[in-house]
């Protein structure tokens, strides 16, 4: 079950690229004083690393659970659910005097999110892969419904002031929510540790429900737990930079190709490295080296989307 020699080289290359991206991002084009740069770029870097880890790991887990290489947890509308929870929660938390503590509010939001996700999965998850497909579709439609209802409410409440807002705002690394950085770090590390302890069970889940149960994995419980973890990771990422639909797809599929295995102890590491190279390296390339004003995240999303189409046209499993 190890890696082939070629895969080892590829993995090493990605690791080197990841390190180079990080170093480059911190040091390229530094003109003003270092203390400022380290603080300014350092916090942005940390946010990007967290997003890379959160999106990569949650997508990988999600794809194993759904036996599919073309789905991402962001499709399920977790981001929308997070926004809803945040908006509804805000008024309530403020009454409790927590309004001025964004980190506490964030943790409460995420806990609430995880709780809602848990209840929804329990209610709807039909204990099979097709049950998961149903869940994803319902998630997508629920997200759509919520967006459209918000739009309608805005129009009805104030017809004159209504400025058409984009249906789904786009993630951006120039507007990172830095006040949440440390909480996000703790949550991400917690979730990733949890996933890593489950890596062997994830290998078994990859063989399908029946085989997994035969081998003694308590299927429903494990899947529900992992889905909740994925939803927490998605909300962390959404809270930091905004929604990203297809970036995870790009990271995991490149990782499958690079590692050439389905063993999670390898694919988890590879996915994270690939995600870091794409996000940090890409940002470095576009923003600092090319000095381009191209909307980088949209570009990344489009790459993921095109990869999705190519995968489907090549007839990859689902």
């Amino acid at each position: 079950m190890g890696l082939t020699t070629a895969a080892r080289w590829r993995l090493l290359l990605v690791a080197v690229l990841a390190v180079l991206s990080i170093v480059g991002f911190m040091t390229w084009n530094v003109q003003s004083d270092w203390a400022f740069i380290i603080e300014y770029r350092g916090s942005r870097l940390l946010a990007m690393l967290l997003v890379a880890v959160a999106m990569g790991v949650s997508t990988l887990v999600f794809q194993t659970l759904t036996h599919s290489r073309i789905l991402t947890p962001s499709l399920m509308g977790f981001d929308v659910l997070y926004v809803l929870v945040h908006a509804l929660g805000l008024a309530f938390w403020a009454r409790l005097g927590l309004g001025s503590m964004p980190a506490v509010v964030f943790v409460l939001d995420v806990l609430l999110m995880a709780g809602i996700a848990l209840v929804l999965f329990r209610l709807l998850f039909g204990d099979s892969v097709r049950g998961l497909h149903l869940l994803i579709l319902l998630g997508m439609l629920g997200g759509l419904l919520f967006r459209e209802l918000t739009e309608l409410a805005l129009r009805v409440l104030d017809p004159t002031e209504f400025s058409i807002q984009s249906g789904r705002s786009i993630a951006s690394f120039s507007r990172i929510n830095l006040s949440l950085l440390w909480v996000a770090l703790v949550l991400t590390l917690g979730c990733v540790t949890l996933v890593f302890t489950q890596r062997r069970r994830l290998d078994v889940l990859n063989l399908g429900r029946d085989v997994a149960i035969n081998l003694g994995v308590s299927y429903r419980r494990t899947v529900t737990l992992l889905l909740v973890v994925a939803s927490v990771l998605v909300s962390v990422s959404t809270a930091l930079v905004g929604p990203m639909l297809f970036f995870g797809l790009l990271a995991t599929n490149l990782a499958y190709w690079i590692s050439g295995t389905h063993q999670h102890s390898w694919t988890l590491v590879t996915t994270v490295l690939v995600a870091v190279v794409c996000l940090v390296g890409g940002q470095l390339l576009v923003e600092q080296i090319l000095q381009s004003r191209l909307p980088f995240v949209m570009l990344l999303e489009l790459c993921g989307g095109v990869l999705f189409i190519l995968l489907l046209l090549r007839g990859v499993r689902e």
Partner: protein
Amino acid sequence: MIEAKTLSKRYNERLVVQDVSLQIPRGGVTAIIGPNGAGKSTLLSMISRLTPMSAGSVEIDGMDVTRTPGPELAKRLSILRQHNQTSLRLSVRDLVAFGRFPHSGGRLTAEDQHHIDEALDYLSLNEFQDRHLDELSGGQRQRAYVAMVMCQDTDYVLLDEPLNNIDMRFAVDMMQLLRRAADEKGKTVVVVLHDINFASCYSDHIIAMRGGKLAWQGTPDEVMRDEILSELYEIPMQVHELNGQRICVYFRMG
């Protein structure tokens, strides 16, 4: 001993298995037969906790399958279903190694390696062990999955139509292997079969189902009878004795 009590399964309004109570003693090969839609596979997957039951209970050596922890049960009982398609690029050896998961949680010990070698050997898969699953023929892949289940080394081995999609030679191989597992290793093998003659020749005990209910059960000598089989499958059937085996003929009657 496997003991099912008043087991039922209901999908919407349809009763697929209705009030089945039976005991399968330790040791030997037990075959479950019956026409399409008799509820054979559903019964087997309820016994092996793959499908939750609507009513009733199943105990394996006194352990309730719905309450016993998964890993605990996975060391006692293994189940192989009919359709095991996976598009993972796994080698045969990797797949078989998963059979050790209940014992070692994925961290393979020397003892596990020994079990894996033995299982590969048992199913004559040695030469294929490094081939990927998607490069194998249907019959070879089926054998790889059976090897995984053997490697799991459980007292009870349940198989749902393991002879599907494999030709006569491999079917005979497979049945002989199951027979050997029961005789040499003392395993309890429960197998759903479509071909009643395989059931007759290889099993110690036959359970016949019809319309979701237990219709007959007994030794091959007791169940392999013209009137029982004709009633079970609703076509005329004749049982002949050939070389000491009871063979049923139904291809062209009258």
